[in-house]
């Protein structure tokens, strides 16, 4: 969430960057989940046998992924209309993707009435994934490009690049990240266009607790900010808190009820806009399908169902009801080869 806090300070350019970060986080989150799962076990055993070994703490979760469990449950990829994704593996490292989306898109309207127009979109993508390098590109038929690069320079140092390029002048975005992974800490330095600079550091303080801080500078707006985060996680629960001088307060709590069911909640408060939102959701993993739903204080109820029909074929149903705005979105889709 650190990235989103710094980006919230610069609304026009950074929301697109934020939009690209969540898709990145879940992918890394899955890998990090596998990586993070084993270390706690030996430490827990050690804890029962002896005092906490402060010289051998686990490596914390990356700063911008501190809320990843809440994200997975509370922010699924909802859509309206029809969606079709096809992924074709050319070699074990190289894949092509074709995505078609058709449905309604909301256009700004006077008053509180919601108005939509039908729209359709095709996107072509190419992925290269290797032990040390990941290259992802997406181009849509409107000329927009989305690029992501991740390269391990050394075992501890990674380079990450996010870019969105458009045909319209001055609307392109780019972000460069250097991530350093220490034994029980992580640090990151970020460079973005429009004179954006950011840095963050997160340190494991105990076996279950990690604390972090970040600072960012928006050159063109001559604005700076500082933020702090805390994360406490065990095998059964994850709790996070985040505060920034931009006036943002974010809390989240995820409880694993069983191997299949997780309950999640989060709270977001912005002192500048006096905007406050609380969300509650569930993530239900069954043998062949996954069901996620959420309810928030803005009167929005949503649900996403993903069912695996056969290996490599996934069927999706998406539903979102905004009772206050009286806006309803329903869609279905299919993903092949994913």
């Amino acid at each position, binding site marked *: 969430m650190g990235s989103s806090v710094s980006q919230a300070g610069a609304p026009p350019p950074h929301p697109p960057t934020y939009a690209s970060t969540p898709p990145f986080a879940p992918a890394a989150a899955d890998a990090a989940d596998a990586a993070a799962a084993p270390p706690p076990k030996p430490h827990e055993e050690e804890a029962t046998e002896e005092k906490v070994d402060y010289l051998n703490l686990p490596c914390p979760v990356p700063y911008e992924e501190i809320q990843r469990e809440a994200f997975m449950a509370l922010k699924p990829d909802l859509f309206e209309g029809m969606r079709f994704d096809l992924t074709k593996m050319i070699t074990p490292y190289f894949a092509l993707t074709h995505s078609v989306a058709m449905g*309604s898109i909301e256009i700004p309207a006077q008053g509180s*009435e919601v108005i*939509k*127009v039908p729209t359709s979109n095709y996107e072509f993508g190419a992925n290269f994934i290797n032990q040390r390098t990941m290259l992802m590109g997406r181009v849509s038929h409107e000329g927009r490009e989305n690029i992501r690069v991740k390269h391990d320079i050394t075992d501890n140092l990674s380079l990450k690049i996010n870019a969105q390029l458009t045909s319209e002048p001055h609307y392109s975005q780019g972000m460069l990240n250097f991530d350093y992974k220490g034994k029980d800490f992580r640090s990151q330095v970020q460079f973005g266009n429009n004179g954006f600079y950011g840095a963050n550091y997160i340190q494991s303080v105990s076996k279950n607790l990690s604390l972090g801080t970040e600072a960012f500078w928006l050159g063109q707006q001559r604005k700076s900010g500082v933020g702090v985060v805390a994360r406490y996680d065990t095998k059964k629960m994850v709790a996070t808190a985040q505060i920034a001088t931009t006036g943002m307060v974010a809390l989240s709590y995820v409880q694993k009820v069983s191997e299949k069911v997780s309950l999640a909640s989060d709270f977001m408060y912005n002192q500048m806009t006096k905007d406050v939102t609380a969300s509650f959701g569930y993530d239900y993993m069954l043998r062949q399908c996954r069901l996620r739903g959420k309810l928030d204080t803005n009167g929005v109820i949503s649900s996403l169902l993903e069912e695996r029909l056969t290996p490599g074929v996934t069927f999706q149903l998406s539903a979102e009801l905004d009772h206050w705005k009286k806006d*309803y979105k*329903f869609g279905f889709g299919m993903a092949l080869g994913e």
Partner: protein
Amino acid sequence: MGSVASAAVPPPPPQSALPQAGAPPYGPGLAGILPQMSKGEEKKDEKVDYLNLPCPVPFEEIQREALMSLKPELFEGLRFDFTKGLNQKFSLSHSIFMGSLEVPAQASETIKVPTAHYEFGANFLDPKLMLIGRVMTDGRLNARVKCDLTDNLTLKVNAQLTQEAHYSQGMFNFDYKGSDYRAQFQIGNNAFYGANYIQSVTPNLSMGTEMFWLGHQRKSGIGFASRYNTDKMVGTLQVASTGIVALSYVQKISEKVSLASDFMYNHMSRDVTASFGYDYLLRQCRLRGKIDSNGVVAAYLEERLNMGVNFLLSAEIDHCKKNYKFGFGMTVGE
């Protein structure tokens, strides 16, 4: 389609009612196809017995096979229907619809607004009497009655009542079923009167005629219909003095697959449309699709998840207007 021709002039509501009225008789109508087989066999054995021809399909249902394949109930958004049977004859139904509704807009752009409504229904079904009522959250009421007065004479009533003045509609039908012919007399509001007659000419061919009078508009019309059907195909032709020409052809490829086509021409408005579609019946699901000369591609999937639980997927893409409609739904207890 004769009724549609006459209805095309004044009352869209009766037009919407007729498909509903047509839906229930499909059951007995389909059973009516079976006697054709025995007639076919007899035809091979001996000369056609013109004194023992089968009873023809009702005049307004002459195109029912094409309608089933080419005009499924497409929708956008979410649809949920729940039917609860209280006893053998009486049941209640609850329907929820949420999605986008198209609003008239200037230029060629399509604009939609989200909408939602709930509909409550009560049904009474008895061998001789059928009562169906539907009431919606905006106060509209839809009522249908069918009563067998004698073995051959049936009374049908369709009504749509609204709160807006002068927008309510009603229609009375008296249907008489003879041994090889059918006759129908219709009385509607706004001084509408209509009559039609259809007669079997051979075991596979039936021909009919209709006439109607719209009192308020001081307008009358005449129509002619013809239908030829065997076990494997159905061909229909319909012409009316309102300028409508309608042709349809349905071919049964196998027990599971049917192909359908229809052609519609309106001499008055110079509007012409041709459609091609398929109806694919699998063990647990039914898939219908169509493409027409207006650039519309549509598909409708109904899958039975359990006894009494159906899952629906609806998709319609209008390439010329660049309008896309997608929806899913569920039917419980139907």
